[in-house]
């Protein structure tokens, strides 16, 4: 089952539990309709996010990655989002060098009460990724015909 079966693209969200995941819940409670591309991974804090998760997602073929956490100074753990901000700013320099358009990655802050804001973040980010289209996939090995094809798709539907 692949998301690209529809018109969707693969967009992964890494959200902190306390603010943004709750903000996405708030958007749900408010029935704020959003595009369906995004899949959310719930983490305790944006400080838990190793930028390499995002690199991994792109290597695996994600078309977009969105990170969202508590507003600066609102971190449930006081400082997690401050570290996250530095790590993610640094990551922004890496992605375009390996061929990931900078528009495919964004990070932002959405609080638990900002359901409307979450909706607009999801809508504009999804639109932005759609404007870029699918992320080109890495070909498997080229050197000696000896590379593996990529590991397997989950089979459903």
């Amino acid at each position, binding site marked *: 089952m692949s998301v690209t079966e529809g018109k969707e693209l693969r967009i992964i969200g890494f959200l902190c539990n306390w603010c943004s995941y709750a903000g996405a819940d708030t958007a749900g409670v408010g029935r704020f309709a959003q595009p369906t591309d995004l899949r959310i991974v719930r983490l305790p804090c944006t400080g838990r996010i190793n930028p390499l998760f995002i690199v991994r997602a792109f290597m695996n073929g994600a078309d977009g990655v969105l990170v969202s956490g508590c507003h600066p100074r609102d971190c449930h753990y006081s400082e997690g989002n401050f570290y996250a901000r530095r790590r993610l700013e640094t990551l922004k320099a890496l992605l375009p060098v390996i061929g990931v358009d900078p528009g495919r990655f964004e990070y932002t802050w959405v609080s638990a009460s900002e359901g409307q804001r979450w909706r607009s973040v999801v809508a504009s980010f999804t639109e932005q990724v759609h404007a870029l289209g699918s992320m080109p996939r890495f070909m498997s*090995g080229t*050197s*000696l*015909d*000896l*590379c*593996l094809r990529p*590991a*397997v798709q*989950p*089979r459903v539907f």
Partner: protein
Amino acid sequence: MVMPTARYIAHDKLMPWLLGLAEGRRVLAPVREGGKTLFLPLREDSRLDLRGLADDSAKAALLPRCEPLLEFHYAKTAGVPSRTTLEVREILPGQETFLFGVRPCDARGFTVFDRVYDAGTRRDIYYCSRRDKTLVAAIACADPAETCFCNRVGGDPGGSDGADLLFTPVEGGFTVEAVTERGGAFLREQALEEADGKAEEAREVREAVRRAMPEGPSLDGAPDEVLRLFDDGAFWESVAAKCLSCGVCSYLCPTCYCFNMTDESNGNDGVRVRTWDNCMSFQFTLEGSGHNPRNGKAQRMRNRIGHKFSYYPKLHDGNLACVGCGRCIANCPASMDVRAIVIQARSRVLDKEEYANE
């Protein structure tokens, strides 16, 4: 069977001939890419580079860096999801390959592999399948590098051990001689002109390069010396001091054949791969318990030298697991020199003996 006579191919005919071969099979040849000369599948736009030793050894043709051995799939039983069966599919390599442009040392490296992977009852089906389907065409050296020392490990810059065909550079092109029956059968089918007098020129070229090799003491026959230093921690510490524990030496070595096996899976599907491994790495002997019998780089260096110059020869009729290509020396980021280590080991043993005699 009688071997066909020597043939000749001119420089300008070589590439078209190789590309012609590539129609029915994979042709691997030393090709210039990214500032390196590497064995890659030959394409029309390839820049063939036959000036000297390629930067990588050609061993990947027979022992790929990464080789899928089998695929597995956890299949659900229809209607009974709690019953899962494991379906396994073996992946056997099957591509006919013409491996062109290896040097005599590289070809001789395959004989080191053969003793391990094609040893009577112990046959590695993956290796043997590739070996059976690969025709090895070696080119005799004409211009040995500073780091070349095949002559000191029982090799020959004009030799043909491990090869099926031997090319020798002569005026205007190469002579081609069959070495094995398979090579002979292949050569008979090729529309190549007779070498005639050029065969003699080729013999002279090979003779000349033998004379041109840098001289040095033989590294043969060191098994006992290395074994006697097994417990000499101080010696290995000192020779390994500058080692970075990277794997450049073993990965570029035409005789290093160690591998690791891992299962890589996602969900219900997975693949078992065999990948090059390297005894200079901490993980090579790391045990599941966390214990590591070769915890330090000195112990790992001892293993590398010991394996090449002592343990392997003891198991295989004195044949060294080193063919003197010198890639480990030329490419070591810390400028380590395997020749020097063997020589040092010898003199260390001599010193000890003298000390004991006094």
